[in-house]
């Protein structure tokens, strides 16, 4: 650092020493934590005996990484002071003005072309993974994120049991179709209505609660639904779940290799992937519907009442807003979209059991909403791509296997990586990817409200 002009030449070596010791402490803590997790590994040898294998180099790597990261963090803090004079850019880099209005249209256009493009480029076998895991799975979470965004982002009600409504929708379709033979197109609205009904049922008793207390009750509600599904065997078939759920049809025409099937009717060669492509378009339309409704509602009095409710409940009541029905509509609408998504999930999976509706799902959806910036539709979509697509990408990283050995599966570390990503987010972008709020009414031009002025929700 000699020769580097510093404001405080005496303070600098001292700061480095302090940073070094702090990083060393963090590294030591990491080593202690890594000892039982990474350094010792029990495995079964050929005779079925449990043998302890020592892997000190793993522990060393973990401690080293933490040490370097901590040191880099301090270094950034010190250099950051020099950069503070320059105005820090917040939010995404501004797009060229001409491109902006086209961006949404371009994205939607690309999404509609995506499955056909994948099929054309990769063929029916290789494209299946792209359409199914990268397409459908991400879109389900985009839709769930947008649905939860109504409850958490707009109305400011922290809901930790959102997956319960997803489960209601999934079981609604699974049970109605297997027991009564209802078709998917009848069950889809029914699943939404049932989920909304449960949303109101949950909403009624918890209306008086706010913040942490509301979060606890919704968390409990999510677990209650799952535990009931596990234990009420007569109704839900318990942990075994429901199998042979009818496949989706093209508005009544099944996707089968027969004369009355989809391919034969439309003069195409039969391919199993047709159904997957149809599912992709279905979830895309459902997600776009969610987005459209949410954006519309934001401009209507009810949407503004939600935002006002998030800001100040007492002020709302003194202005004559019925906070009870305002909260209930938020809960019911959010739940309804989860119900739609659940019905879609059931028709896509062909089999469901309570294991798909654990708390970790609620947490992931909430993480998507928080990561994306509460209340921002685009941010939520980006966060869903990052979280769900990111997990899938991890499986593809073969070079990691060359470093850590053949048995290394990066996907097993995804929660660790998400945890790290969340911590980094909280440090650098505490309000999410896209945190600016666009006013829903404006005079001449729409001006986004800068992130630095936007307060996090109070829950």
């Amino acid at each position, binding site marked *: 650092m000699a020769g580097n002009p510093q404001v405080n030449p005496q303070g600098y070596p001292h700061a480095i020493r302090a940073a070094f010791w702090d990083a060393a402490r963090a590294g030591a803590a990491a080593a202690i934590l890594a000892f039982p997790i990474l350094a010792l590994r029990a495995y079964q040898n050929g005779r079925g005996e449990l043998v302890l294998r020592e892997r000190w180099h793993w522990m060393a790597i973990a401690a080293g990484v933490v040490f370097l990261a901590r040191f880099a963090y301090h270094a950034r803090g010190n250099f950051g002071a020099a950069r503070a004079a320059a105005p820090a850019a917040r939010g995404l880099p501004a797009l060229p003005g001409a491109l902006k209005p086209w961006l949404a249209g371009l994205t939607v256009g690309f999404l509609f072309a995506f499955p056909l493009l994948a099929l054309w480029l990769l063929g029916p076998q290789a494209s299946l993974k792209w359409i199914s895991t990268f397409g459908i799975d991400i879109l389900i979470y985009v839709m769930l994120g947008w649905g939860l965004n109504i409850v958490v982002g707009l109305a400011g009600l922290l809901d930790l049991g959102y997956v319960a409504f997803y489960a209601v929708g999934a079981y609604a379709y699974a049970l109605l179709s297997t027991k009564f033979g209802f078709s998917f197109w009848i069950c889809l609205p029914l699943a939404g209505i049932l989920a909304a009904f449960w949303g109101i049922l949950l909403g009624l008793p918890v209306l008086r609660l706010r913040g942490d207390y509301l979060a606890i009750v919704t968390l409990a509600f999510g677990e209650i639904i799952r535990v009931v599904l596990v234990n009420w065997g007569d109704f839900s078939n318990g942990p075994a779940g429901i199998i042979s759920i009818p496949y989706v049809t093209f508005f009544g025409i099944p996707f089968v290799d027969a004369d009355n099937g989809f391919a034969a009717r439309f003069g195409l060669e039969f391919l199993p992937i047709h159904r997957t492509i149809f599912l992709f378009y279905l979830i895309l339309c459902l997600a776009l519907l969610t987005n459209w409704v949410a954006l519309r509602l934001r401009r209507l*009095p009810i949407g*503004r*009442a939600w*935002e*006002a409710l998030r*800001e*100040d409940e*007492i*002020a*709302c*009541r*003194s*202005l*004559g*807003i*019925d*906070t009870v029905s305002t909260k209930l509509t938020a809960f019911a609408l959010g739940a309804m979209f989860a119900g739609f998504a659940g019905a879609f999930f059931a028709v896509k999976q062909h089999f469901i059991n309570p294991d798909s509706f654990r708390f970790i799902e609620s947490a992931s959806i909430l993480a998507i909403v928080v990561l994306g910036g509460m209340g921002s539709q685009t941010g939520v979509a980006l966060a869903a791509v990052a979280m769900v697509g990111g997990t899938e990408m991890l499986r593809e990283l073969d070079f990691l296997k060359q470093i850590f050995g053949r048995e290394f599966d990066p996907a097993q570390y995804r929660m660790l990586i998400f945890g790290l990503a969340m911590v980094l987010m909280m440090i650098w972008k505490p309000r999410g990817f896209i945190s600016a*709020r666009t*006013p*829903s*009414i*404006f*005079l001449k031009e729409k*001006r986004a*409200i800068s992130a630095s*002025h*936007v*307060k996090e929700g109070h829950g």
Partner: protein
Amino acid sequence: MTAKPLLTMRGVETWYGSILALKGVDIDVAEGEIVALIGANGAGKSTLMMTLCGSPRARRGAIVFDGRDITNLPTHEIARAGIAQSPEGRRIFARMSVRENLQMGASVLRGAHFARDIERVFAIFPRLKERASQRGGTLSGGEQQMLAIARALMSRPRLLLLDEPSLGLAPLVVKLIFETIRELNKSEGLTVFLVEQNAFHALKLAGRAYVLVNGAVTMTGTGRELLARPEVRAAYLEGGH
């Protein structure tokens, strides 16, 4: 008093758990009047204001507004009956623009004559018009108070409740706010019931006033009368004003 009574409180008792906060208060506000309620910290001024709005609820007594018993109406129904409040600490929606704040104030009317009403409050508070697309949270304290009052006016209330409108404002701004209230009362005949710690300003503005001590009304009279009383001067006006 010849004017028609608009708001009547009779023997209103409010309890916080086992603590009696209002000990049977009688208040009358006639149509077109400005009535002030003054008192020291903890006398129960804000409790009285909140009781009017139904949160907390009066355990005993009756609150009648315009001939209708509102004692047990839900808070939002009371607001819809024609009582608008500029609450203590202003409580504007900080993340929403000035215009959106005003829109929230008009939600009782479901958007009827919104365009005319917003021009009206902009005429009363020209500063808000300049700041129409600015976020509420970025306004100065005085502007926020103006916004709180303007937001309350958007519902075309029969009775405007003001809870500590001078709280934390510079003397010049306080003067401006009080002049505006007087002007509104004179030109539109708006009935105002205000709670103030700033007794001097409140008593000068108000036609009649009540003094609240420990949850009970101890004195009442015209603003001028109370200003002249030595015990009022000693308790609320000495030192500073």
